[in-house]
């Protein structure tokens, strides 16, 4: 019970922090970056449920993100549907689609799974480029309306900030609830040993597909939010590179750590802004980060900080003990 209370306390502190942040960082540009941190947090969270908790990699999540953005964008810009309904349709379609595709895909393991999800992502990306009649092709789709409630339209950075972080907080709360439930324990069991999990009565196959569908659906919602915030989408935002970037966020933040995902998303969104001077060469930094984190800090920042702290403590302890 005490554990649960500390979780709730952490969540409330985060919510307060998010509520206050725009009053400190109210400059337009910074606020815009924070909007992206929010969208990326939802995506990293979605991928972490699959990658960190269930231990199943996906190199195609940019595709699901893009599907959400395009379905929502096309339904509203071309068929002038209400954005909220479009978002609901986008999320449902992507969830159902990934549920169907999940059965053959998640039968695969390791490298095969990585390549299959990568293939899915690339196929989706090619469709964005080639189905010009619907998507506008490489030049993109514009004229997507903002979300609105009555006459209140989410058309400024500050309004979008609160909109997207509301979604992000809901996603965090649901994820926390999920991973501390029976399902969360079952997922971790699958991660450690699928065979053992199945012996214990976990329907591993179905559960993997369900978490895959949930993760894809959540990414689609993030995509829909992205489309209605930016009012413009183009295929370049949903390529293989972005899938890798999402995996990087999860790894850097920490596998199987909800708040780690936030940290990873924040770092990888803010870092390119700081590296602006290097233009496209920030890609080298990503590569190095991936290698170095995997080699030296496989638990990510969320576990790395406490680890580093305890390492330093023991070192200090050893050094001071001869004197004592």
């Amino acid at each position, binding site marked *: 019970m005490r554990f649960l209370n500390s979780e709730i306390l952490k969540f409330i502190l985060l919510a307060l922090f998010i509520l206050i942040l725009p009053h400190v960082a109210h400059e337009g540009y910074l606020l815009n970056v924070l909007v992206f941190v929010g969208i990326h947090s939802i995506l990293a969270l979605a991928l972490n449920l699959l990658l960190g908790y269930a231990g199943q990699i996906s190199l195609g999540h940019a595709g699901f993100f893009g599907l959400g953005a395009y379905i929502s964008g096309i339904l509203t810009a071309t068929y002038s549907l209400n954005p909220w309904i479009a978002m609901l349709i986008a999320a449902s379609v992507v969830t159902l689609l990934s549920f169907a595709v999940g059965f053959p895909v998640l039968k695969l393991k390791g*490298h095969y799974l990585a*390549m299959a999800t990568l*293939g899915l992502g690339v196929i989706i990306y090619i469709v964005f480029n080639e189905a010009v009649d619907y998507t506008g092709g490489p030049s993109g789709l514009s004229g997507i309306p903002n979300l609105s409630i009555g006459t209140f339209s989410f058309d400024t950075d500050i309004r979008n900030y609160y909109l997207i972080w509301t979604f992000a907080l809901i996603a965090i709360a649901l994820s926390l609830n999920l991973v501390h439930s029976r399902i969360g324990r079952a997922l971790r069991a699958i991660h450690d040993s699928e065979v053992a999990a199945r012996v214990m009565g976990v329907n591993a196959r179905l559960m993997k597909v369900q978490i895959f569908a949930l993760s894809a659906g959540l990414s689609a919602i993030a995509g829909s939010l992205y489309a209605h915030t930016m009012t413009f989408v183009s295929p370049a935002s949903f390529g293989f590179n972005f899938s890798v970037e999402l995996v990087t966020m999860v790894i850097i933040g920490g596998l199987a750590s909800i708040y780690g995902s936030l940290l990873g998303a924040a770092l990888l969104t803010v870092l390119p802004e700081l590296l602006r001077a290097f233009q496209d060469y920030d*890609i080298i930094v990503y590569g*190095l980060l991936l290698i170095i984190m995997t080699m030296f800090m496989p638990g990510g920042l969320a576990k790395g900080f406490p680890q580093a702290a305890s390492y330093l403590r023991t070192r200090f302890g050893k050094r001071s003990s001869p004197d004592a």
Partner: protein
Amino acid sequence: MELSDQIAQYLVSGLSTGAIYALIGLGFAIIYNSTEIINFAQGELVMLGGMFALFFINFLHLPLPLAVLSAVASTTAAGVLFERLTIRPLKAATPLSLIIITIGGSILIRGIAMLVWGKDTHAIPAFSGTEPILIGTATILPQHLWIFALTLLAIAMNKLFFNYTITGKAMRACAVNKRAAGLVGIDVRKMVLYSFAISASLGSLAGIIVAPLTMTSYDVGIMLGLKGFCAAIIGGLSAGAGTVLGGLLLGVLESLGAGLISSGYKDAIAFIILLLILFIRPQGLFGKAETERV
């Protein structure tokens, strides 16, 4: 042009791209067999081959054979360096950490190539002119002949190496059972290094011989690498005939699909084949089903 003539033409170009995919696929298979790693950076080594060739031919003005050899040697060195710096020091390697570290490596190599050679597309001169040769109703470029000849040579040399040299046999032993190979005195870590060297040299050769036809730039590695992987999967990740046939099949299907169905969806064809094979026959078209050991 008659439809049959067109098809003959698609077959010629399909087979030559297929030969490239086969070389890259062999690189995947050789590393996989000795380490159970899928090297996501394989495509970048292909790119490096083309880029180094560009450097030696256009910049240092070396004679062609020397330039090709230097480019293969440089890329092989890069492959060896990659193994020594990332794969070998990795403690407690899991499939996931290996996937991520090789992806990290591929991004890093691509980034460095962009830094060194810029973002432009570069052309390498064809090995012996661009005068088309008429065979039946199809025309073929001299570069296509070079591709076929050098691919055949590389495959033959691989075959000889793995079947008739003591090192090659030791590497095959590692592929069958690493522990047992270690017990009979084979230096497994050295064999892993060799497998990276061989697959880097095969990949770079592919990158060099295809560059005069398709041009090269810092980002060609991703697609070529993925197609090569697709060839290896069709072949059941065998470091031999299976992967070569897989590459040729993929090249021909892609070329026919691009010509007869839609060129925009050309790249999607390879991935649809990849997914179908993974879903229906993950052991490859020619392989036998394996039972999973727990």
